[in-house]
């Protein structure tokens, strides 16, 4: 059985208590995008500065549970100074990490339908090699893997990423 320590890893609580890249950026040149989870009221606001195909700066605002806010903080650290293509790669990897559970649940007939289409790259082959590859690229974000054992919280973890996806689409 999944324990609370699987969900609330120390590094997640650290990002929740001391979120990275909090604040705002002047718009323009930055692009502002909002993500909202209508089920729980969690809110993520991103300020993205994209210059010549590179995410030169990112700031985050909004409010929500520890998972959504920690995921936002870790995401901001992971994509800062990355190229837009690299950032999209991280989105794909993280979304795949969150959807491993989906395919397992689907097999047991318990898939949460609300998660369908929550972002691109939601298909994973789930093989060991692939997981390791994604893991290497995700670093600290791997700590959020425990979230998949708590299906209703996956949306919390994904909110920042679907918002980033939208922001990159709009800003580029």
């Amino acid at each position, binding site marked *: 059985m999944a324990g*609370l320590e699987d969900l*609330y890893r120390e590094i997640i*609580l650290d990002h929740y208590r001391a979120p990275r890249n909090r604040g705002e950026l002047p718009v323009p040149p930055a692009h502002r995008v909002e993500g909202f989870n209508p089920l*729980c*009221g969690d809110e993520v606001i991103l300020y993205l500065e994209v210059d010549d195909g590179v995410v030169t700066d990112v700031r985050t605002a909004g409010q929500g549970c520890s998972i959504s806010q920690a995921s936002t903080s870790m995401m901001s650290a992971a994509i800062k100074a990355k190229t837009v293509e690299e950032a999209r790669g991280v989105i794909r990897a993280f979304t795949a990490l969150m959807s491993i559970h989906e395919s397992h649940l689907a097999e047991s007939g318990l898939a949460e339908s609300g998660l369908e289409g929550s972002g691109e790259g939601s298909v994973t082959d789930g093989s060991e090699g692939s997981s390791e590859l994604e893991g290497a690229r995700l670093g600290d974000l791997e700590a959020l893997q425990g979230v998949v054992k708590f299906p209703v919280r996956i949306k919390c973890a994904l909110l920042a990423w679907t918002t980033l996806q939208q922001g990159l689409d709009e800003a580029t």
Partner: protein
Amino acid sequence: MKDLDVARIQADFPILKRQVHGKRLVYLDSASSAQKPIQVLDAMDRSYRESYANVHRGVYTIAEEMTAAYEGARAKVAALLGAASPNEIVFTKNVTEAINLVANTWARVNVREGDAIVITEMEHHANVVPWQMLAAERGVELRWIPLTDDYLLDLTDLDRLLDGAKLLSVTAASNVLGTINDISHLSAAAHAAGALVLVDAAQAVPHLPVDVAAWDADFVGFTGHKMLGPSGIGGLWARPELLEAMPPFLGGGEMIRDVTKDGFTTNDVPWKFEAGTMPIVEAIGLGAAVDYLTGLGLDAVREHEKTLTTYMVDQLTNRFGAGLTIYGPRDVEQRGGAVSFLFDNIHAHDVSQVVDESGVCVRAGHHCAKPLMRVLGVPATTRASLYVYNDEADVDALVEALATAERFFAI
């Protein structure tokens, strides 16, 4: 009035024997949906096993048994609500459907562009969105009765808000704040202004004696699943002359008297509003739930919840002090057993997740009352809500589980 024998009541609820995460199930989410006693489960099971058939159609024995049981459930609900006749009760899916029924029938005939409908800041979305839909379609003005700092309705400007209004639609008891509203007082004011009164009684009928005549309301919506009955069945009480005059809601079988190629005529009230095969067995289950509640006595239920609510509020306040804010009236005479709260520095969802590890079920979120959440200035609250099967041990388990959450998220 006899006190509730809670230990005996608990024995009637099979789910309370269940364990979650190796812990006794502590169910504190009855404001969302109540658990079901064996009497309700048996009544439904018996219906399917022994007499199941459609109602109002067959002339054979089991069809007549089911029709009698279905209409018997209507009579039980009518008696519970103080209705003059069972025919004043229309079965619907829930309160949401009851309110949509009124919005799509009575309101379509009687509410025109430039008219106003008055609701309150503490309404559930079920009593907000149908009126917003009507307002957008018809150019109707939607007015909101605000809250006081004590989480009661602020009636200072009531007469002005009711001026020119066709309807006051108000909850009898808030699903978030617990606030119990003085419906008789509101009805008198609304009627004096020429407006009708719709009461969302979802959180009242399960928990306290309700008398639609004493309320002097015009429409009252209720739902079965919050009052120990199954989901999928609820209803609308309305004054008979209103039901007679209202056009039908859904068209189909059962709601007609005659159908020709040229048109149709409607069935008598209340069947005029019950198109298609209704949730028959659910209605019978609701009837059994009414029997169960009547057996306990709604006065006794209310007293039990007042005592336990006082205990819960005191325990939360004593244990967590200023670190925990309760959103709702302090005076137990003005509130029911739905208690919403927030820790200063722990999100409602995290609280709910951590207490689940202790087998404690509480709701976290906006409770389908987002306008109220905005008024309160919070994105979500945690809500613990009490019912007939809860006792002090449940409250103690909640408090201990919350203390664990507080330690877990301590900086």
